[in-house]
């Protein structure tokens, strides 16, 4: 026990030793927190709407006035001809152009159906679709207002967004970030510390010491746990204090699940380090794991949007399960019963990867 404690102390000292290393433990977490929580949003706002009005009649002007005051568009650009339209889209000065044909108002006056062209930039089709939805809403409201005998519309549906009444993106980002940051630091600390020792030759010294491979593995995993838990705590604290997200569930449960998650990741980290012979290989190995891991975690796009075969493959991705757990405890105050479907995969992953890593460690150094 004393030996493991000594090894853990040595590992922590190695991480905290020089100024550069200390900076790199703290600055990235803060940077990621800021960048992700402010920038990683799929909302559509501050866009430019361009208008090409070949009509000039009363109806088109009325409609343009309505579009101009919409929240999603902060700037309205008036175009004069088709060449303007072309360059507005081509050079991305506008997200979309609304084009009124020359007989728009006349047709409306005699109540014949007429269409409005909306030209969108296919390079940003997701934002385009959202913005198109706004335009559609505005046009349909305007139509209701102009049609004879229209009554004031009553809101037919009461919509309640549970766990996040204002659909604030930060409430999606912070729990995901807890999972992503703890994953990065766990993998890097475990796999690089082994690879560094191997590259510098001190790993052989460890092996001839009375420490068994299992003890070395524990000695490499515990510091990663400490670092990852601290970083996770920083993000959750920022979520509660800075972004005002109420913490709904049980802290004890969340930290318990986090330890299990870190074990599953440490298994991957040790597995990578037992295959890699240099730091470069270890780092690139970690990177090749974390990159798909984050992309398929459900953070950038929902898991249920993936094809079924990929969803099955994604079962081995600890991030995917842990994001559900953090969101569950943090936002929904879920208990063990609801989380079990995400926890047992983590347990299975941890068992498989740790056993495999232990086996490789012993075989390589027997």
């Amino acid at each position, binding site marked *: 026990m004393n030996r493991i404690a000594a090894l853990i102390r040595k590992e922590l000292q190695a991480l905290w030793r020089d100024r550069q290393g200390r900076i790199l433990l703290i600055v990235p977490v803060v940077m990621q927190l800021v960048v992700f929580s402010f920038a*990683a949003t799929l909302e559509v706002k501050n866009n430019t709407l361009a208008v090409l009005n070949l009509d000039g009649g009363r109806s088109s002007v009325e409609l343009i006035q309505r579009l101009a005051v919409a929240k999603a568009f902060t700037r309205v650009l008036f175009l004069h001809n088709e060449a303007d339209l072309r360059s507005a889209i081509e050079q991305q000065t506008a997200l979309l152009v609304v084009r009124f044909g020359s007989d728009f108002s006349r047709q409306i006056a005699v109540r014949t159906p007429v269409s409005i062209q909306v030209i969108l930039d296919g390079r940003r*089709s997701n934002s385009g679709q959202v913005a198109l939805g706004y335009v559609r809403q505005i046009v349909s409201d305007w139509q209701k207002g102009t*049609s004879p005998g229209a009554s004031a519309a009553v809101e*037919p549906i009461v919509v309640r967004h549970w766990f*996040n009444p204002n659909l604030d993106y930060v409430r999606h980002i912070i729990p995901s970030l807890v999972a992503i940051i703890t994953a990065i630091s766990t993998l890097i600390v475990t796999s690089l510390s082994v690879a560094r020792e191997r590259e510098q030759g001190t790993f052989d010294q460890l092996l001839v010491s009375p420490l068994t491979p299992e003890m070395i593995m524990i000695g490499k995993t515990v510091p990663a746990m400490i670092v990852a838990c601290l970083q996770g705590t920083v993000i959750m604290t920022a979520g509660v204090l800075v972004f005002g997200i109420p913490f709904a569930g049980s802290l004890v449960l969340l930290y318990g699940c986090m330890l299990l998650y870190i074990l599953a990741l440490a298994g991957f980290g040790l597995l990578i380090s037992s295959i890699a012979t240099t730091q470069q290989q270890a780092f690139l190995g970690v990177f090749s794991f974390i*990159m798909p891991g984050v992309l398929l975690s459900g953070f950038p796009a929902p898991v249920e949007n993936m094809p079924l075969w990929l969803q099955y493959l*994604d079962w081995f991705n600890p991030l995917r399960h842990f994001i559900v757990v953090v969101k569950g405890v943090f936002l929904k105050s879920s208990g063990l019963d609801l989380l079990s479907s995400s926890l047992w995969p983590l347990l299975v992953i941890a068992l498989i990867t740790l056993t495999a890593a232990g086996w490789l460690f012993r075989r390589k150094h027997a």
Partner: protein
Amino acid sequence: MNSRGRLRRVRALTHKEMLQILRDPSSQLIAFVLPVILLFIFGFGINLDTSRVRVGLVMEDTSPEARLFAASLFGSPYLEVRASLNKTEVSQELAAGRVRGFVVIPVDFSQQIKSPQAVSPLLLVTDGAEPNTANFVESYVRNAWEHWQHQRLVSRGAASEPLVRLEPRFWYNPSADSRNYLIPGSITIIMTVIGALLTSLVVAREWERGTMEALLASPVTRAEFLLSKLIPYYVLGMLSLLICILTAVFLLGIPFRGSVMALFLAGTLFMGSSLGLGLLLSTVTRNQFNAAMAALNAGFLPALILSGFIYEIRSMPVVIRAITQLIPARYFVTVMQTLFQAGTVWSVLLPAMLFMTFAAVFFLGLTALKTRRRLA
């Protein structure tokens, strides 16, 4: 110092670097295998477009009107509706994430919709923990409602065709498929990884192992040293770009409408700025672990989040929008998306290329400066 000796030294050092790349499976993994995997992930795994969302339905009212509305929900191509017995059951399903929202048709539904002062006959609850999906659920349910309303009017013979119809046209990408711009954008990520991450590790290793001192003691000059590091990784990066383009066009079927020359030019400039960043970080940190961490945060993360290829730059706060102006990846994303989809639009490409040139000169110049300082 004669030029022939210089050429020979650069060639020898480049040769050594090439051998190192060829012998290390991890460089090949990063340069050739990971790009293809990533392109496939972006092709299949990251889907921002609409797909069928699972929602629950509680029918407290079973009148014909309520049934007709339920039919309209079941008929929506975007919703996968599951009937539930009561609110408690479906609430559990929502908390567990098995459904992303649920609709309650209240007991007095059929009376509510008949009275002219109807106050919100329907309740929709969504899972706010997934804000993007919640937005979709809301708009799908609203659509189903409108559809049902329209049908009711039709059956009474009171329906009128809408006067104004919107005719949306997505230029360059008529089917509005998010893959068509995500995949070209993701190539930026791959180039950043090779340029900044791989290179930062390599030079830092020379410092860490002390082979850098040996090199500096030799007649090799700064320029020769930097060239010998730039050439192999530039070649590796461009090869990887080629593989990405081939995979995107031939395996994933993304149309490429621009000129190959423009692509080559832009790729070279972006590689220059990424390599510059990687070399700079490794020269400053002199430590593989720190260099890689720094490259991850200064190169990779901004390329992923702030380059505008997934997340819309215009929706970011002003300060962050200003920061994105300084990120080379942002310009390369624009170039790639334009080249793939819109074609060779020089008015978009030229400013972007100009900035990438500045960035490359800046990073490489700073690296050269830093290397000299270490020598003194």
